[in-house]
């Protein structure tokens, strides 16, 4: 019976309480084992596919041993305190969110220790503990209020800092907030009801004064009705001063030693004032019992589903932060890195701080492709690794994810900004490797799969059917306009100054066309023949051709345009198929 709090002991059958508790605990443990096993099963990146499960478990054991007995143990303890408990990384980036999160973390942890584990913790530490005593009554309200204020602040900050960018789906985030809110609400309501309840008064009077006789208790009832808010329906204020005097004496003798003023429950007490008119009804319906059942079983539900709700971050993020502290990135073996990536997929909270500061966010917005944004990219990287991304019929998803992955500039801001300390740079690199392995490399790579002529034929064959919107006007105005190339006199100056042509002597990077031939194909109206050409895709954009063209033609600008055009048009006729 050690686990159940006093109030629970009195109300709930022991077996029911314990069966429910241990069942939820078992579900929680099984869920945690399943979720954490993914950190050793999921493979992100080609190098992760080369290591075995036993190598990854070996790396875990070695890493843990080094962490516990190595030179960095103080470093890890420091991280435990500063990163995990005080949320240092969040503090460095967004202080209001840090405050909100810290309020939730502190309020929740303290409620858990002082209130939920009262029989395990509080009673042992403070022998005179009673849940009704000061300061516990007040503190319970305070901790609950901290959680509520924290949640409100986080939602407010989310709204205040809205970016207009598509935010990634956060399954179960709302469900978790609702559950947490429900636990808090039932807790406050239960307490409020007990404050106003004559039933609860008589129960306690019996225990501490040894009587339940309304007449005998009259003076005490008068004091509790007028000063502590018990809603007796058979008493009417005002009370005679001698009655009050006698009541106060009784109060001092039997109650005050063990019971703080109910008003110190600064949330529950005002709520109890609202409940006062219906208190008799609630007493009759035994609200003290069913509110307690709701409160306790909502907690059990939270416990059982912890591994599958947003709450799981309370496990994954601290582990991620401690793993970071255990060794510098370069010290991780391929097996260790593989597990770290899988952990990162779970530890991401989808908080969106990375998205808000992403260097290519304006491109994501303009191209209408959220997969440029870190949080979406992380989800896609996980889906790709789990085989959920590339399903037949979802080819366009694969293309968009690849576009996002290859437009990332590796500026490192997301990694710097991540409050969970995830090494996102490493994840992106691994994800690009996975995309390439799935036949979705950068355009400059997949274009090479066919010679320019074959691409032109593919375009011709698909002329009637491909539905991709023709981006000519917006992305290729120069190559669509004769005036920008018709003055070419084929003097070959562009070819002569081109460093790519100059290096083309080696067999492994011979160009198929020269800049001057590209211009000539445009003059001949054969633009499609240039789109897949090595020359167009190997152009270094050094602008020698454009600078030196005696006719002032914008040769390099046209090359850039042709690449953008090719990415659209050749992309639409690619023969890539998702594995069915």
């Amino acid at each position, binding site marked *: 019976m050690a686990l159940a709090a006093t109030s629970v002991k009195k109300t709930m059958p022991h077996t029911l309480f314990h069966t429910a508790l241990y069942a939820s605990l078992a579900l929680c443990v099984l869920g945690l084992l399943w979720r954490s096993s993914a950190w050793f099963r999921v493979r992100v990146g080609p190098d992760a596919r080369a290591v075995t499960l036993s190598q990854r478990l070996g790396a875990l054991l070695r890493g843990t041993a080094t962490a516990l007995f190595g030179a960095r143990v103080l470093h890890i303890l420091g991280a435990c305190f500063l990163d995990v408990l005080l949320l240092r990384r969040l503090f460095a980036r967004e202080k209001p969110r840090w405050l909100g999160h810290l309020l939730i973390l502190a309020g929740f942890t303290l409620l858990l220790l002082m209130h939920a584990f009262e029989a395990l913790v509080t009673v042992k530490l403070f022998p005179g503990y009673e849940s009704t005593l000061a300061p516990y009554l007040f503190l319970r309200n305070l901790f609950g209020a901290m959680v509520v204020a924290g949640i409100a602040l986080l939602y407010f900050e989310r709204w205040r800092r809205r970016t207009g960018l598509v935010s990634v789906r956060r399954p179960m985030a709302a469900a978790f907030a609702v559950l947490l809110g429900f636990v808090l609400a039932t807790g406050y309501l239960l307490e409020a009801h007990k404050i106003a309840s004559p039933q609860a008064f008589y129960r306690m009077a019996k225990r501490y004064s040894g009587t339940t006789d309304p007449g005998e208790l009259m003076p005490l009832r008068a004091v509790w009705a007028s000063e502590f808010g018990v809603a007796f329906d058979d008493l009417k204020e005002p009370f005679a001063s001698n009655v009050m005097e006698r009541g106060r004496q009784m109060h001092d003798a039997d109650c005050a030693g063990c019971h703080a003023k109910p008003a110190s429950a600064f949330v529950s007490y005002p709520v109890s004032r609202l409940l006062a008119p219906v208190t008799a009804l609630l007493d009759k319906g035994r609200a003290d019992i069913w509110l307690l059942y709701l409160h306790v079983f909502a907690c059990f539900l939270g416990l059982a589903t912890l591994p599958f709700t947003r709450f799981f971050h309370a496990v994954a993020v601290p582990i991620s932060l401690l793993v970071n502290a255990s060794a510098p990135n370069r010290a991780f073996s391929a097996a260790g890195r593989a597990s770290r990536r899988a952990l990162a997929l779970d530890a991401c909270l989808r908080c969106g701080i990375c998205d808000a500061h992403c260097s290519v966010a304006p491109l994501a917005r303009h191209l209408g492709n959220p997969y440029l944004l870190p949080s979406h990219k992380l989800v896609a990287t996980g889906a790709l690794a789990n085989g959920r991304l590339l399903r037949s019929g979802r080819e366009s998803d694969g293309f968009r994810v690849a576009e996002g992955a290859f437009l990332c500039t590796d*500026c490192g801001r997301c990694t710097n900004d991540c409050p969970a300390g995830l090494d996102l740079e490493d994840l992106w690199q691994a994800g690009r490797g996975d995309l390439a392995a799935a036949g979705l490399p950068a355009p400059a790579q997949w274009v090479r799969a066919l010679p320019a002529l074959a691409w032109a034929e593919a375009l011709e064959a698909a002329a009637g059917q491909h539905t991709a919107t023709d981006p000519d006007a917006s992305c290729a105005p120069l190559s669509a306009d004769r005036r920008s190339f018709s003055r070419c006199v084929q003097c070959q100056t562009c070819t002569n100054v081109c460093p790519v042509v100059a290096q083309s002597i080696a067999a492994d*990077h011979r160009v198929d066309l020269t800049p001057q031939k590209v211009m000539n194909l445009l003059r001949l109206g054969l633009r499609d023949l240039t789109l897949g050409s090595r020359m167009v895709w190997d152009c270094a954009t050094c602008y020698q051709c454009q600078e030196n063209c005696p006719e002032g033609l914008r040769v390099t600008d046209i090359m850039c345009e042709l690449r953008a055009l090719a990415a659209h048009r050749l992309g639409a006729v690619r023969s890539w198929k998702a594995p069915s």
Partner: protein
Amino acid sequence: MKYALFLGCKIPSRLPAYELSTRAVLLRLGVTLVDLEFNCCGYPARNVSREAFVVAAARNLAIAERAGLDVLTPCTCCFGSLRHAISFLEEDPELRSRVSQALAVEGIAWSGKTEVEHLLPVLARTIGVDALGAAVRAPRAGLRVAAQYGCHALRPSNVARFDNPLAPTTFETLIRLTGATPVDWPRQLDCCGDPLHESNAPLSEHIARAKIADAKASGAEAMCTACPHCHLRFDSAQAGSPKPSIRSLLYTQLLGLAMGLDEKSLGLECPESPIRGR
């Protein structure tokens, strides 16, 4: 003198020494640098959508414009990209209106008030040779370096408006001020190969090595750079090669040393990757 400092993506993540030394040198020269939250210059998007490229670039310009500042960038490619976006916006009214719409979502606008400057001309012309010369306390006499402008500083010259694209002298003048000697090297104006590295690594390496060999044969002891892309490409093209290589030296580091700034403040001991948490 006050500028918004545009670092781009490469400097903070891969070459923090360039940021450190730029800040140290400009601080000593009395230039105030303001940090705004810029985004990517847009260059990577040129291969996908011209409009997205211009929107990204114009967003940066609009952010600087809102702060009432001109932009100073130490990255040659970002410089070229931002200048290019301006020229696209100026020549194409239809593009301009679409870009304006895109920016209006965030309540910002581009009107062309903000100038984009590369670090080298700011040093040579705005701060001026005389002021620089007066700041030099410890000339690096005897050091022979190959000045690497970077393509997007010079070309296309009507967009970059940086220097004479065929016979530039800005960088050489700046190098002489430090006491070092710029060498003549035939492949000076060639590409460093970096833009090709993702798409065709062997070709990129060939181009880079040809330049390095040429600089070396011309008597240079170091590549003097003013662009993170060129700088890192030269270093990585030589990484793992058995022969002793010639190192890349950022111009801001060379100038800082000549000005008597200490090595630490110039990032000469900087670790390669500064990304926190790595």
